[in-house]
């Protein structure tokens, strides 16, 4: 199924350049596993990277040092194993999981929806945070069907990938595979679709304002 909502090209470029925080990169990757369109965009951005790297004017490294490194490399060519042609290495096959999470989430949330350790955050809202490097926040949310989230804007960027269920906001309908790539100017109030809970993985490119910040906004709406 092709997602209806894709990554912002500026986000694609930052991802390919290695310029996204780990939290944002994980959500991008979760989207890429199900989106041929955005994967092709990333490959284009990597090509741009290749051209840029080649285009650089390298410093004049000392000739002596250069020769030394060169000699070391020639020596290593003899010593290093050489690999046969192969397709990309698929991740190690595991016991078939009827309920797998996208592979990019495994190091952060485990392998399966079934083993997620949800923590109650507010009525109808459960959350799991995962520690990441850098200043961002990475978390999964499970929101009960038909629930209205607080109207909120974003100090910085927010990236949300829908894994299950769906929600609607001013930007449209977001179902499984869709990503909402929002910057600081967008105010939105997601309302989850009726039926099944909406499960998302999300990243905030902002420092340490979750869950306090989020919870404060959430509370008035859920009547606490």
């Amino acid at each position, binding site marked *: 199924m092709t997602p209806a909502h894709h990554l*912002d*090209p*500026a986000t694609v*470029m*930052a991802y390919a*350049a*290695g*310029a996204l*925080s*780990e939290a944002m*990169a*994980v959500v991008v*990757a979760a989207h*890429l*596993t199900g989106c*041929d369109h955005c*994967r*092709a965009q990333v*490959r*284009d951005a990597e*090509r*741009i*990277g*290749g*051209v*840029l*790297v*080649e*285009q*650089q*004017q*390298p*410093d004049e490294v000392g000739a002596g040092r*250069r020769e030394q*490194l*060169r000699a070391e*490399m*020639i020596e290593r*060519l003899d010593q*290093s194993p*050489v*690999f*046969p*042609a*192969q*397709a*990309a*290495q698929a*991740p190690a096959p595991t016991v078939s999981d009827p309920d797998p999470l996208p*592979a*990019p989430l*495994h*190091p*952060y949330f485990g392998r399966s929806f079934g083993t997620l350790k949800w923590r109650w955050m507010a009525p109808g809202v459960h959350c799991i945070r995962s520690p990441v*490097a850098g200043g961002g926040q990475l978390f999964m949310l499970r929101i009960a069907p038909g629930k209205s989230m607080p109207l909120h804007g974003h100090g910085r*960027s927010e990236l949300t990938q829908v894994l299950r269920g769906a929600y609607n906001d001013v930007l449209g309908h977001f179902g499984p595979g869709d990503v909402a790539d929002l*910057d*600081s*100017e967008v105010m939105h109030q997601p309302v989850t679709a009726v039926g099944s809970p909406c499960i998302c993985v999300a990243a905030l*490119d902002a420092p340490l304002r979750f869950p306090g910040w989020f919870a404060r906004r959430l509370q008035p709406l859920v009547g606490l």
Partner: protein
Amino acid sequence: MKPESTGGTYSPFEAIRIVSTSKLPANDGHDWSTEMVAVAQRRDRASFMRIYDHFMPRVCLYLRGMGSTAAIAEELAQETLLRLWQRAASYDPSLSRVSTWLFRIARNLHIDKVRKESGWMLVQDALEAEEADHDGRAASSAEAYVEHTRIKACIDRLPATQARLVRMSYFEAKSHHEIAQELGMPLGTVKSSLRRAFLKLQADVRGAA
């Protein structure tokens, strides 16, 4: 951690011009793919060392910009080139340029070894496997036929600000937010400038036939 400045005493805009005007002999037209095929098929050392001599200092400079010390950049650049040698048999000239391959290897090594992001390599492997499954590479196969000089010309034609933002992304791994702060620009402007730059460059890397 502050990446080392690569701009020297030049203003950012002068630096762009300098970087984009190679003073080296005309290597732009060099067919690195053919050298690479020789490595893949015959383990041709002379071809490999020509690739090495051209790319090693560039990869090294790239890694220093990303924030590695000179010693670590050297080590990772050597490792990058060695992987090219080791994995040469998997190289398919119709799928990617040598420079794209090296860029990916160097970037991945940096994120894995220097930034120590635990999931990055796993994700890259998973994405490659996904592409192999879905034939997602079909859309990429035009790459080898696009003239390097044409892409380079397109980069040179970018407005100075867009070129500056592209460089800060690729050569300093600065996030949109960091760029906005450093240049005193609104975040939205940073993103829209990068968006425009990407769409222009993409049209050229895809070699719109």
